[in-house]
């Protein structure tokens, strides 16, 4: 910490100029434009260009922040801003998942029973359109969209995955203890274990998807069950992937000697994010797979 004397603890660090935000905006625009044209039947080129630019932006922007952090330019107050920022970001992610859980609960509590004739709403939808439909869960609806399928059972791979993610919550805590004890080998060992568990989870999830598509005829197009199943587990899997990438970066930074006993918010942010992903999985396990 040769730069400790430069830590501006008396005033808040306001970075001067940054070209990363505008580069990020342009990249995002190209990505979104590319996505829209691809959906309208265009080619992948623009989308991939946008994605590449966005990845470069992420490397550059986070790289700048990491260098500033290691130089000790962030006071305690800046640290607190990052904490608040991360907390509210995770809250926004929770609300994103809440929309999909809401869709699941609404379908199971209202739309499917109503299609099956429950309450007076059934007079029209049930009586006139689909009189033979019996409400049940899982279902692909009265029009049998996607054809006959078998649901995913909770007590196979999903239960194993629950065990894996819960264990990864323990290993990341052990890594944190290593960090605050000043025991770097312990930090690195348990962090590597956490990343490994994350990757194992993703591998099993991919196996499960393969099984669903190949043998169960359970697809994204399998009515409301397939829609909620794949969108919820898919977005969760995406978040596990992002979390695992973040943890890998933290692992490399730990090996490079970054972080001090007192100051390691990047590690904590990654851990918070990982716990969030963990908690979402518990919701998925209970409401998507089990009940």
């Amino acid at each position, binding site marked *: 910490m040769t730069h400790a004397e430069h830590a501006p603890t008396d005033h808040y660090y306001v970075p001067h100029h*940054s070209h990363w935000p505008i580069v990020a*905006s342009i990249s995002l625009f190209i990505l979104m434009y590319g996505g829209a044209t691809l959906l309208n039947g265009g080619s992948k080129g623009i989308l991939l260009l946008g994605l590449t630019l966005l990845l470069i932006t992420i490397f550059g922007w986070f790289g700048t922040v990491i260098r500033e952090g290691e130089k000790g330019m962030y006071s305690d107050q800046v640290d607190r801003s990052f904490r608040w920022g991360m907390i509210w970001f995770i809250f926004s992610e929770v609300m994103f998942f809440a929309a999909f859980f809401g869709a699941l609960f609404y379908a199971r509590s209202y739309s499917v029973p109503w299609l099956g004739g429950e309450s007076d709403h059934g007079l029209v939808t049930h009586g006139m359109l689909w009189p033979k439909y019996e409400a049940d869960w899982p279902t692909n609806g009265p029009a049998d969209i*996607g054809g006959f399928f078998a649901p995913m059972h909770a007590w196979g791979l999903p239960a194993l995955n629950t065990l894996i993610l819960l264990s990864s919550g323990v290993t990341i805590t052990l890594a944190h203890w290593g960090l605050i004890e000043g025991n770097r080998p312990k930090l690195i060992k348990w962090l590597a274990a956490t990343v490994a568990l994350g990757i194992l989870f993703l591998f099993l999830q991919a196996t499960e998807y393969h099984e669903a598509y190949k043998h169960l005829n359970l697809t*994204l197009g399998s009515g409301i069950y397939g829609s909620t199943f794949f*969108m919820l587990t898919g977005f969760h899997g995406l978040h596990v992937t992002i979390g695992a990438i973040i943890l890998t970066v933290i692992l490399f930074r730990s090996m490079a000697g970054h972080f001090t006993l007192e100051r390691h918010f990047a590690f904590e942010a990654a851990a918070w994010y990982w716990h969030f992903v963990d908690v979402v999985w518990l919701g998925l396990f209970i409401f998507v797979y089990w009940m």
Partner: protein
Amino acid sequence: MSTASHAHDHAEDHGHDHGPPRGLTRWIYTTNHKDIGTLYLLFSLLMFFVGGSMALVIRAELFQPGLQIVNPDFFNQMTTMHALVMIFGAVMPAFVGLANWLVPMMIGAPDMALPRMNNWSFWIMPFAFTLLLSTLFLPGGGPAGGWTLYPPLVLQTGDAFPFVILAVHMMGASSIMGAINIIATILNLRAPGMTLMKMPMFVWTWLITAYLLIAVMPVLAGSVTMLLTDKFFGTSFFNAGGGGDPVMFQHIFWFFGHPEVYIMILPAFGIISMIIPTFARKPLFGYASMVYATASIAFLSFIVWAHHMFTVGMPLAGELFFMYATMLIAVPTGVKVFNWISTMWRGAMTFETPMLFAIAFVVLFTIGGFSGLMLAMAPADFQYQDTYFVVAHFHYVLVPGAVFSIMAAAYYWLPKWTGHMYDEKLGQWHFWLSTIGVNVLFFPQHFLGLAGMPRRIPDYALQFTEFNMMSTVGAFMFGFSQLLFAYNVIKTIRGGAKATDKVWEGADGLEWTLSSPPAYHTFTTAPEIR
């Protein structure tokens, strides 16, 4: 390495004392809350005119029965785009711009908590709107199913569809980042002694608004993602054949949509609570009750969403719950109106332009509130649903409500921001023309709605002609008087009588202790608040 980085650090520290860099890159690379506030406000003004032009197309077509100017499909694109542009492009960015300029100065902070992200929040917006507005030139034109994007109708949109969805995603990301920044700033960067219950009302209302934004923008993102996958990837969220339900979209959308309404009005409440005390020369009446009322409105906003869909076919218990919950909102809102009036009671009032707009807000917003109560009654709403009465209601709360508060704020703080007084006479002309215009524009729409004229239709039965003509005359009067506003703003930026630091005799708060215009960086060391 050490020396180089020392020199570099030193240069950066030294840079704090300088003013803004010159040229275009100042605005593109800036991390300064004042620059970013200015960018937001100018962007919002531009979008206000874009969305306003669309409104004038709508009103011109409705001047007479029959189809005269545009074809029905383009008319539908105009109603859809007008709403999207005004909500996401004009009103929301204006409030974020005001927050950027004012929150740090009001709480004694050097800048926003996360300055680089602040820049990104802004610069996403022009790109998002390029994406959105470009759809008007695509084959099949822009989205025409209404801004609420109800399936199955919206799924019939042509090439514009994925562009609209992804543009909404970009706006959402911008809003969420902006809101995170505002919360982090308010919670972490207050000067010593600036306790929560000493914060100016504008800061309080924005704190709560930012919370609402973070809670509901992701839900909007979720609902439009489901639309996207229903259209392109074969999911059945809104398809009854697959066990989904189009009504489910309305529930998820309005779970976002109703708090969104308060996102567009709570900062307005904050602005009015700043301006009225200044010109009544009395402290705000019932500060603590204002804070609690704001929090109550925010809480209630999460449990009233289905009043937007009373006629969709809900169980009776749902109708009743949402009806009574909605009516409850009148209580905290009443507290606010009562407090504003009590602040003015026996005050030494003067009527400069910001105060005129603030008083008009109190009166005209309340009219919108009352029509809202009428709409809250489920059995009565069955008659009003999708008529011009609804259009009149939400335009009363949004135009002489939200928009008037933004104009009041612009006149009130422009002298502080620019160091110049605006042209008071022109401001008064702008006020009176706007106020008369907006009432001629929207008041007749109440009668049209009660008589049964449906909204979002380019043609109408003959008996509605007179009120429609009045409304259109008011629309053009209101629309063109905004050019006075733009002219006055530009004139004030470029010159004018020198403003004092305090600007207004009755002004109170940290921002008025700074010079007019304030230095590029203010409160780099926090002031002490007693």
